[in-house]
């Protein structure tokens, strides 16, 4: 009898190990959402026992996800704010770890029919503070400017606000769009529109020069393009197990090649 129970226990435990799978939850930056989905798909193909769930919503949601246990990894297109970090420290007694995985740029997009090829930082500042409201002031036809921005949960929103608007608030006429895909499709539908987003999101909207420099890989790598930043994965503490393995894989040549093919600038 004892032998039978022992046998059942062994069989049962082996069943558990066969069915066992690992789950990694990732949340945060919309800029990084598509990229992480692709990286996750390739990783899961090579590691069938791992399931990775990626959700967007903005960098702020990523940090909140870490705080409330709904995410193992936060995708962040900006640095963590000090008040967000304090919550993590108070709750987990850890100051967190940033893993830089790629370099990105804030790209300014206009409609493909728009002949404007270049805007200066000052032009952008004036557009988003509603000091310039018409394309004729920027060398095109007499048509009102329809400017889009991201929601305040987005890291891109904050980066643009600090680096272009010098910390001032966007003017009230600027339309807030929930995610990057919608913003790009709206630009494509409206001739007089302008918006901004990350580099790696391929679209039909026309990227333009800033301060006479195109957001090309070489220009971003050498910091010639003025609006560059790092894309980060943020964990509460040193990652362990498959989370660690996944991040290490992203930093491997294979992971970095996927990042480069997607359009971002790799770290390696």
């Amino acid at each position: 009898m004892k032998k039978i129970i022992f046998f059942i226990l062994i069989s049962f435990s082996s069943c558990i190990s066969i069915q066992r799978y690992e789950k990694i939850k990732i949340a945060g930056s919309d800029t990084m959402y598509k990229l992480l989905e692709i990286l996750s798909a390739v990783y899961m193909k090579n590691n069938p026992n791992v399931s990775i769930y990626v959700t967007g919503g903005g960098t702020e949601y990523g940090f909140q996800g870490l705080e409330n246990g709904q995410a193992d990894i936060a995708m962040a297109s900006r640095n963590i704010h000090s008040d967000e970090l304090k919550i993590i420290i108070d709750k987990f007694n850890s100051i967190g770890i940033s893993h830089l995985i790629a370099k990105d740029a804030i790209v300014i997009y206009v409609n493909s029919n728009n002949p404007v090829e270049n805007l200066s930082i000052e032009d952008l500042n004036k557009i988003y503070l509603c000091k310039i409201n018409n394309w004729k002031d920027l060398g095109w036809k007499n048509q009102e400017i329809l400017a889009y921005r991201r929601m305040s949960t987005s890291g891109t929103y904050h980066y643009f606000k600090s680096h272009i608007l010098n910390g001032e608030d966007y003017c009230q006429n600027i339309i807030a769009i929930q995610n990057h895909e919608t913003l790009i499709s709206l630009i494509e539908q409206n001739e007089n529109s302008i918006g901004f987003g990350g580099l790696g999101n391929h679209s039909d909207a026309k990227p333009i020069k800033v301060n006479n420099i195109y957001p090309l890989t070489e220009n971003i790598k050498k910091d010639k393009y003025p609006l560059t930043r790092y894309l980060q994965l943020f964990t509460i503490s040193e990652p362990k197990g498959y989370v660690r393995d996944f991040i290490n894989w992203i930093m491997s040549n294979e992971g970095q090649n996927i990042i480069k093919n997607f359009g971002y600038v790799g770290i390696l």
Partner: protein
Amino acid sequence: MNKLNLKIIILIILIIKFFGYNKLICNSLNEDLININNIKNHSFALADDSMFGRGNGQLGLKIAQKYIIDQLSKNKIDKNNIIIQSLPVIEINTLENSEFEFINNFGTKKLSLYREYYIHSSGLMSYFPNELDLVFVRYGIFAPEIDYNDYYGINVVGKTVVFFDGVPNELNSNELIARYGQLEAKKRIALARGAIACILIPINEIKNNNDWKNLGNDYEKPEYNLPFFTSNILTIILHPELTDLLFNFDKNNLESKNFTYENSQILNTKMVFKGRYRDRSFNISNIIYEIKSTNPKYNDEYLVITAHYDHLGVSKPIDNDSIYNGFYDNAIGVSVLLELSKILTEQRDILKRSVLCIFFAGEEIGLLGSRYFTKNPIVPLYKMIANINIDGVAFIDNFKNVIGVGANYSNLKEFLSDIALDNNLFLDTNFNKKEAFDAFYNSDQVAFAYAGVPSILILDGLEYKNVSFEYGINRLIEYIENYYHNPKDDVNLNINWNATLQYSQFLLDFIIKLNNCEKVPEWYNNKFYLERLRTRAEKR
């Protein structure tokens, strides 16, 4: 040979093996096997101008890497025993057109990078265009064990904290000074309290403008990091001469008549920081050389011997010389490790445990090579019994005593003391503990300590056979003032190779005895590195 004779021979072998084996073999190893000419030749090669100062992210480091691999390959071993561990590094330069301003009712003061402030860390390219509140928090220390708190009753969330260097009188033990005196510790405290940036005023360290300019040797350079790092914070070092400017408004303000540096308080001055940066990434490599012991019971345990092979490369010229050759720092240390690796390979049959000889890159830019290795070790950390780091070999004269930097934290002190006696040396324990901690903190051995592996840096003491104590001290001062991190640290530096030979022989003896001892080093119970053992135990 008859049976009785055979028994006697076996008995003699056993007696030697169990009672005198190590000692006999080790002593003879020391005397005969180290060839100082090999060490000299490697040192001259590594510090040659053709290596361009072995700078991280520069061509010279790759040339040095090839040289070291070529030398290791001559050790007649399987090439698989050499592992190249490549690690990516992020370099961030803060540009001089960055804007840093103080704003108060007296007006706005724009500060000039390098002349009036340095950037200690950019907090991953921080950019704060909005006015930030400044809060003075004395020394920026929170030490709950002695109920000391510079942040008591002050909310710093989203604000910049301003603090002095050093520690208050209340922190009167070396252990507390070691724990809280470092800027890194103060930054972590500021982060944990929710601060957004730090301003350090080094009123104790910087006494005049010359001191300030010397600080530029460390901070007029880019900031380096691995692509993964714990959260960081913008940290600005402010010229102490500007202290008055920062506090004047509060000192002169009628409402703030009670202002004193003794109290933490919110200042009436605010700041803006618009950082401009240039960044890039590049790869550097650690070279790991494994000498596998033939002892099946112990060969899965490792003694780790390390030396960094990077230096400062081609940088700002001094007296028309822009190649920082790093002859003493650390071409000679690397050369000693190359010679030790050769001997240990030849003598591997007497090794109880295996040995890892690691040539680290990235030491000069924040111990990046060793930090990366201890996060990504090629064998589990708990299998490493100890780390012996080589960074500064004997070069003045034959010495009578040795110093174990970090020895006080573990029973490596006892090993060192015993083995020193075997070599007619004694262990010098009469040195400033604060200085000793700084030395321990400033080279690759500390990365092992933080990872839970007992570690030590062995230096020659200051009692010499042929020269006086004063002469030795003056030579060290001369090196620090005129040669350390200077292009003049080149092959023309006066080295007493007999001293280097004695040091290498002692090190070889120490390595073999430590490696072959039944007992393994352990942290002393009251040392904070012990906490890391729990992590090691978990991994086990």
